[in-house]
């Protein structure tokens, strides 16, 4: 066993990692494709952060944009007003993301399923409204730009896309490691217990409140940090984008669900499907009519859910089982 993985899995991960490291050198470093790959990595990381709450804790959050947007604004405003490096700003972004997650945990502690989804949706919208109306702080609906600085690692700004790619890849690896670490730890077992039977969990000594808050805060901190990544990559954002229900909240949840909620590889698979799909739909259809791309995308989502509500991983397992049954005849 290497790092807790079977040797087969370890080889698989090593191969994938190797491909990921080499891939960007095979394509145009200034091109469009590599930007899509960067977004794919970033959204996979975001999906993985969501996965901690949505997959491990089984709480459907539709408001993760709140933490993401707070993170993006925190580091960017610190940069604009105090010239603080985005890396330091990212620490603050994570802290504020975690605080926000803590704040929303309290009133939603006893909610499950649809009720929880609704409450978190409302929270995300609260942040968006605040972002749009508190113009003196956030610049309002017009949005905010990351000030231009000489390209450097210290200031998290680069001329080429390649450095961003590797940073996003590193972020994805870190978030995934955190996910797996939690899954295997005491907290992971406790979350599983809470997912299955809250009363029984409490009776055998699981502090359900503290465990749930922990998962929420970790998820919030990570989303906040990823908000900084986004800001530094896109150079510009507005409240409707970073606090958006469709653009962020639903998307990151969708990525984790489509890929396989609760699994470490799920968000990665999901992002590999969703992000390029969206781009393809945009490219193929946007020219003809506004909305067609999104329409196709929404229809695809519906089809995926109808075919296998538990996502690609489960679909894959089902296919494997069917294959095995057929082979043993």
């Amino acid at each position, binding site marked *: 066993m290497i790092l807790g993985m079977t040797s087969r899995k370890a080889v698989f991960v090593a191969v994938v990692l190797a491909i990921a490291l080499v891939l960007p050198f095979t394509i145009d470093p200034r091109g469009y494709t590599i930007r899509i790959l960067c977004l794919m990595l970033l959204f996979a990381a975001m999906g993985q952060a969501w996965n901690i709450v*949505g997959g491990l804790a089984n709480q*459907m959050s*539709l408001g993760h944009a709140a933490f993401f947007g707070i993170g993006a604004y925190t580091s960017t405003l610190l940069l604009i007003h105090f010239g603080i490096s985005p890396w330091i700003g990212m620490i603050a972004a994570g802290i504020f993301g975690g605080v926000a997650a803590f704040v929303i945990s*309290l*009133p*939603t502690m*006893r*909610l499950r*399923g*649809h*009720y929880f*989804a*609704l*409450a978190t*949706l*409302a*929270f995300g*919208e*609260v942040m968006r*409204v*605040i972002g*749009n*109306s508190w113009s003196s702080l956030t610049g309002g609906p017009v949005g905010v730009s990351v000030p231009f600085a000489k390209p450097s690692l210290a200031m998290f700004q680069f001329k080429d896309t390649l450095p961003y790619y590797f940073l996003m890849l590193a972020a994805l690896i870190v978030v995934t490691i955190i996910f797996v670490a939690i899954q295997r730890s005491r907290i992971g077992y406790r979350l599983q217990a809470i997912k299955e039977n809250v009363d029984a969990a409490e009776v055998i000594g699981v502090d359900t409140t503290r465990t749930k808050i922990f998962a929420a805060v970790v998820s919030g901190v990570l989303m906040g940090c990823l908000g900084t990544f986004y800001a530094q990559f896109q150079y510009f954002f507005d409240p409707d984008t970073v606090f958006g229900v*469709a653009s962020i909240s*639903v998307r990151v*949840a*969708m990525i984790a*669900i489509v890929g396989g*909620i609760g699994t470490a590889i799920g968000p990665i698979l999901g992002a590999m499907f969703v992000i390029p799909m969206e781009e393809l739909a945009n490219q193929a259809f946007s020219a003809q*009519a*506004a*909305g*067609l791309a*999104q*329409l196709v*995308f*929404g*229809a695809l*989502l*519906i089809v995926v*859910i*109808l075919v296998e*509500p*538990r996502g690609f991983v489960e679909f894959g397992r089902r296919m494997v089982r069917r294959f095995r049954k057929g082979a043993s005849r």
Partner: protein
Amino acid sequence: MAIIQAILDGLMIGGVYAVISIGLTLVFGVMGIVNFAQAEFLMLGMFVAYYAWAWLGLDPLLAAPLAFAVVFVLGALVHQVMIRRVLKAPAVAQIFLTVGLLIVLENAALLMFGSSFRSVSTPYQTSALQLGSLFISVPYLLAFLMSVASGAALWLFMRTSWFGRAMRATAQDPMAARLLGINADAMHRLAFALGVALTAFGGAVILPYLTVSPTVGGQFVVLMFTVVVLGGLGSVAGAVVGGLSVGVIQSLSALAFPIQLQNLVLFVVFIGVLALRPEGLLGGSR
């Protein structure tokens, strides 16, 4: 005096909110599914009424039954093709199906109707009745009366018709209902179609004082959910109480806050209700 005016306006608007939201609570009560795309059917109802006005010269209030009928059929279709299949799936899948439906409907509308905002003009649009020093806006009043009428019709339907009672039976005890020969699937379809059609009806009725665009649904999503959660998910009477409350809250907060923050008050109320009393003021059936 401004406060009394606000409360009056709020009650009238609230009556409409109630009718718009009854569909949401009906679907949840009978099927246990929260339809995140409900507000899109509102938008569709508004568009049906708009085109009835633009092409046929029909007043939106007269076109409301037409909007009801059209969306009823659409709702039955949507249930048959999609909703039915996630009835037993985990909540995650249900939520995502209706979210996907939201995306599809909104963008289909965008494609068909374009993104511009449109409004109708009716002869009574700016008129108001005067009651002492209070003004009663005629469009509000008419919308309110139509809502009351449709609400009463629904109440009668649920109480006295076979379908209505069968739906309630399915909601309360699916097993027993089945044993009585009630086809649960058909009841679900009826509930869903009825629910979205009522929301569309409400949309037509508010067209005289609002503008319509494919994105108008978004403004109503949290509002509708606040109404049903406040009243209790699954309780039709609750939707009425919730609707009136939300109307008044919105109206009063318009006095104190600028337009962008008005919704904020609503959201905070929403989260507060979920935190403190998720079963709502009247306690839901689930």
